[in-house]
C-alpha cells in the first residue's frame, strides 16, 4: 500500500467492531460456568488440597519400576492391535456408507439419510459400546476392537463422503459417456480421486483410536487400560508410572510415523504441504 493510499490521520483509527454473536456467546458461557461451579457441590477445601494430592502421586510414580516395562509394553501392544483392527473394521464398513452419503454420487435424499446413520454411530462413546459388547461376547480384546470399529464408522464415513463430494466431475461424466455401471463408475471415476485423502483419514483415525483403545481395559475390553487400572487400585505407583511412560512413548511414536505417512499420501513427495489438521478435526467431530 502506498503512503498516499493511507487514511488521513483524522480517521486513522477505525471504530472497534462490536461482534454481537461473540459477545453474547461469551456472556452465555460465563453464566453457564457460574451456574455449573455454584451447583457442582465440589467442596472448596478439596479443590485446595488437589494440587498436593496430584503432586504426591506424581512423586510416587518416579522413579518408575523399570522392570515392569516389558509387562506394560505387552499390554500396550495389545492396545495397538485393538486400535488397528478397530480402524480396519471402521474403514471397511464406512466406505459404502460414505458413497451413499456423498451428494454427488447418490443425490439429496439418500445422502441425508446416510448422514443421519453416520451421526448415530458417532454419538455413542466407544466405552459405552464396549460395555455392551463385553456383555455380549465376554471379556477380552475382541469386544474392544468391535466397539472402536463401530464408533469409527461415523467419523470416517463423514470425512470420506466429504472427500468424495469434492472430486472433479470429469471422470464421472466420462465413465457415464462410455456406459459404465454404478460399480465401474465408483471404481474408476470416484475412488482414484478420493482415496488418498480417505486413506489419510484412516491413519488419522488410527492415531485417535490408539488413545481410545488405551482406556478400554478399565471395563475389561483388553489392552493397557487394565494394567494401569490394576496398578492404581493396588497403589503400585512405580508400576503405574512405568505404564504411563510406555503409553506416552508408544503413542507419540505412532503419531510421528503415522503423521509422516499421512503427509506423504496427501502431498506426494512434497513434504512442505501440511495437512490442515484443525480443519479436518472440525469437520470430523472425532
Amino acid at each position, binding site marked *: 500500500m502506498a503512503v498516499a493510499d493511507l487514511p488521513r490521520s483524522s480517521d486513522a483509527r477505525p471504530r472497534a467492531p462490536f461482534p454481537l*454473536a461473540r459477545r453474547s456467546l461469551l456472556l452465555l458461557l460465563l453464566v453457564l460456568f457460574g451456574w455449573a461451579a455454584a451447583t457442582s457441590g465440589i467442596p472448596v477445601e478439596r479443590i485446595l488440597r488437589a494440587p498436593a494430592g496430584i503432586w504426591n502421586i506424581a512423586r510416587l510414580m518416579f522413579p518408575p519400576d523399570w522392570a515392569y516395562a516389558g509387562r506394560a509394553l505387552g499390554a500396550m501392544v495389545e492396545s495397538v492391535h485393538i486400535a488397528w*483392527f478397530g480402524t480396519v473394521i471402521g474403514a471397511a464398513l464406512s466406505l459404502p456408507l460414505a458413497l451413499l452419503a456423498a451428494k454427488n454420487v447418490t443425490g439429496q435424499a439418500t445422502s441425508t439419510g446416510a448422514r443421519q446413520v453416520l451421526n448415530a454411530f458417532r454419538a*455413542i462413546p466407544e*466405552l459405552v459400546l464396549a460395555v455392551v459388547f463385553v456383555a455380549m461376547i465376554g471379556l477380552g480384546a475382541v469386544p474392544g*476392537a468391535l466397539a472402536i470399529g463401530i464408533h469409527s464408522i461415523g467419523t470416517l464415513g463423514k470425512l470420506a463422503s466429504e472427500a468424495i463430494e469434492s472430486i472433479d466431475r470429469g471422470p464421472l461424466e466420462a465413465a457415464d459417456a462410455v456406459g459404465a455401471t454404478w460399480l465401474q463408475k465408483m471404481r474408476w471415476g470416484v475412488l482414484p480421486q478420493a482415496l488418498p485423502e480417505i486413506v489419510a483419514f484412516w491413519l488419522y483415525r488410527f492415531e485417535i483410536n490408539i488413545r481410545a483403545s488405551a*482406556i478400554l481395559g478399565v471395563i475389561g475390553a483388553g489392552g493397557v487400560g487394565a494394567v494401569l487400572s490394576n496398578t492404581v487400585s493396588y497403589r503400585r505407583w512405580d508400576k503405574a508410572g512405568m505404564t504411563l511412560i510406555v503409553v506416552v512413548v508408544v503413542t507419540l511414536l505412532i503419531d510421528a510415523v503415522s503423521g509422516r505417512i499421512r503427509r506423504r499420501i496427501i502431498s506426494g513427495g512434497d513434504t512442505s504441504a501440511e495437512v490442515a489438521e484443525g480443519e479436518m478435526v*472440525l469437520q470430523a467431530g472425532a
Partner: protein
Amino acid sequence: MSAALPDARPTRPARSKLVWVAVALFLAMTAWSWDGIGFSPAELVEKADNARRIVDDMFPVAWQAWPVLVEPLLETFRMAVIGSVIGCSLALLVGFLASQVTAPNGVVYGVSKTLMSVVRSIPDVLYALLFVAAVSIGPLAGVLALVFFNVGVVAKLLSETVDAVPLGPLEAADAAGATFVQRVRAAVFPQVLPNYLAYALYTFELNLRASVVLGLVGAGGIGQVLRIAQTRYRYDVIALIIFVTFVIVFLVEALSISLRRRLS
C-alpha cells in the same frame, strides 16, 4: 478416422513401488493385530445367541428409571462446562507459547510443544483414573481429567492455526516494539479468534461425550449409573443411558454446528 490417431490411448503411468510396500504393510499389520486380539469369526457366531439375549434384555427400555438419571446427567453437564472453560482458557496460553510465530523464544517453544504432545498422548479416562486416586472419587477428578484432555487438544489446534496466521500485523506490532502479551493480544488473537471459538465448541462436544464415560472409573456423572447398571446386569437401564446420551450428543452437536457456522 481413428486411424489418424495412432496413439490416442495414453500410456498408463507407472505405479509407484511404494504402493505395494504400503499394501504389504497394511496386510502385515492387519494379520498381526488379528492374531494379537485373537479374533475369530467362528467364535463370534457361537456368541450370537448370547448377544441376542443381551439385546432382548435391553428391551423394553427402562423408561421408568429416568428420574435416577437426572442428577447424574446434570453433573455430567456441569463437568463438561467447567472442564471446557478452564481447559480452553489454559489452552489459550499454551497454544500461543507453542507456536513458532508467537513463542517468546526457542526454548519456550520447544518445551511447550513437547509438553503439549505428552499431555495429548494420555487419554481422558486414564487421567480420570489417576485423578480419582489423587483427589478421591467424585466430579472434581472428572473436571481435572477434562481440563488436561482439553489443554492437549485445543492448544495443539490453536498453535497450528497461529502458525499459519498472516504475518503482516505481527510485523507491525514488532515494529512498534510490542511485548509478548501485546503481540498476541493485538496482532494474532483477533485473527485466530473465530477458529479458537470453533475449537472450544468442538471440545465442549468432546467433553460431553467424554464425561458420560468418566464415571466408569468413579469420576462423577452418568458413567457411575452406567457402572452400577453394568454390575447388576440391568441392560434395560444401559439402553436408556445409551438413548439419553444419544439425544444429548445430537442436540449439543446440532447447536454447536449452527453456532460455529455463525462464528466463521
